[in-house]
């Protein structure tokens, strides 16, 4: 038996979500008393570094069919690695590609699955895994009753632990179908931490009045090393790019710190952010609903408060 972690990379670079998945796999493997095997698909140098995060073995499949993401081909490769490693528990990061693989693998292996787990499995009362449901208003504990179990873990649910050592990479041969999906274009924002991975998020809403005012939001984000986000009307009006839109119809995030600026805190907005560890709300309306979901609140005009906050952050970071 083993735990297999499918480790995603972008052009050979591993992201924080990848390290979180390996650490999660390792801790799960430890609790079951079995090895943790990492699987890397496609070209990526330095996969052996995953040993630092707890992989006792690293398998890598290199095949031209893996050059671009096609969930059908990737699922076939992962399923073959599951057999090769003798794995019964499969762990993936809850990313856009990870979600597609989770469903496919569960169907292929006739497995119980948990999508977006927020905690390590427990085994004293059946194999159980928790996740947030109903926009973070509740937690559901799933029991997985199948031989194979597939889990995707939500970002920021576990702290990557790099206390291990690198291991040798073993290459694995796989028999893969030809891809049916052809990638024509791939656009990722360079140099910025994508929202689902960000630990600090600075988010602004309609209270900003217009796109020309975003400089003060970016200044604060820069001082904090944060990623920027926005409310839906802001994205809908084209003030900010669509991929910054958080909430029920945008993306759901759970950073350590979420700073909401000029956002009223409508329930559909909260649905995407209320699992943040700490929430700071800046709003001139003391009755804005967001204050009910906040840890710290500042009632004031954002155009005055924001530059002051940025200065205070710089002062603290400088000292």
């Amino acid at each position, binding site marked *: 038996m083993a735990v297999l972690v499918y480790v995603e990379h972008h052009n050979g670079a591993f992201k924080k979500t990848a390290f979180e998945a390996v650490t999660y796999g390792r801790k799960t493997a430890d609790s079951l008393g079995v090895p943790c095997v990492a699987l890397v698909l496609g070209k990526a140098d330095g996969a052996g570094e995953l040993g630092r995060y707890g992989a006792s073995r690293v398998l890598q499949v290199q095949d031209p069919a893996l050059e671009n993401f096609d969930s059908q081909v990737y699922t076939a490769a992962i399923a073959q690695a599951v057999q090769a490693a003798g794995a019964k528990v499969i762990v993936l990061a809850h990313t856009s590609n990870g979600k597609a693989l989770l469903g496919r693998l569960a169907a292929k292996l006739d497995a119980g699955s948990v999508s977006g787990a927020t905690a390590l499995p427990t085994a004293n009362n059946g194999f159980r895994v928790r996740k947030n449901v109903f926009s*973070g208003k509740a*937690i559901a504990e*799933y*029991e997985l009753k199948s031989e194979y179990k597939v889990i995707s873990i939500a970002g920021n649910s576990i702290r990557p632990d790099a206390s291990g050592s690198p291991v040798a990479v073993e290459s694995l041969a796989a028999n893969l179908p030809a891809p049916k999906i052809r990638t024509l274009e791939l656009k990722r924002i360079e140099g910025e931490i994508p929202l689902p991975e960000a630990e600090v998020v600075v988010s602004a809403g309609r209270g900003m009045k217009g796109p020309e005012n975003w400089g003060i939001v970016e200044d604060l984000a820069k001082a904090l090393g944060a990623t920027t986000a926005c409310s839906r009307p802001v994205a809908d009006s084209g003030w900010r790019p669509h991929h910054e839109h958080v909430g029920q119809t945008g993306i759901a995030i759970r950073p350590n710190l979420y700073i909401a600026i000029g956002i009223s805190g409508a329930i559909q907005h909260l*649905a995407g952010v209320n699992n943040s560890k700490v929430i700071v709300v800046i709003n001139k309306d003391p009755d804005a609903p967001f204050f009910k979901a906040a840890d710290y609140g500042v009632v004031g005009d954002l155009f005055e408060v924001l530059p002051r906050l940025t200065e205070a952050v710089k002062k603290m970071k400088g000292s």
Partner: protein
Amino acid sequence: MKILVCITKTPDTTAPVRFSADNKEYNPAGVAYILNPYDEWYSLVCALELTEKHGGAVTVINVGPADNETLIRKALAIGAADAIRIDANPSSALFVAKQIAGYAKDKGYDAIFCGKETIDYNGAEVGPMIAELLDLPFLSFANHLELDGRKAKVSRDIEGGTEVVEVELPFVLSAAKDLAEQRIPNMMGIMKAKQKPLQVIPPAPFEDKAVIAVYETPPAKSSVRLIDPENMDELVRLLHEEAKII
């Protein structure tokens, strides 16, 4: 072309979230249900647009009890030609996917559409499961689609960006925001929907592999701590020393 659109119901976002006394079941008392917005606004409407442009018809399919029929009729009022209801409690994602794949496998659909996820459990699992069960390509989180003959060009959401891919029919797709514009059913649509076929079929047996053993409600947040807007040094100090996050 023939498109099968998977639809489900979810509690309205503003609905109360309560559970049975033993916390083992969701308590639906006083809960208003809606069609899952990703299914209704984007997936269904995109499928309708395709059949309006290229000919063909849209069938909607739901795995659920008889009281879902009001919402199924709404999908018919928006424009689907007919509906299938598999008469069972949708007890897990794999259960639902097996029912839908089992129904669709020999019907020759050109495409099967799902919403990106449901807004209650956010699983995003049923679409890729159907794709795997039917051995079809899967395109998740589609925000734009153009069809040229049998070839589709699809733009999809990925972390911090988009990916544009090309694929031939048939395939399974999950719909994200921007794939289409919400349509409000009109009077004529509502009238016609009453006459459209809604076939009820029994489920195939399947034992769930994943069940919710228990729910928990997180502890209520303590009330907000207000900081003097003149004193942002104090806020930074608290975030640094008390919350320890910067």
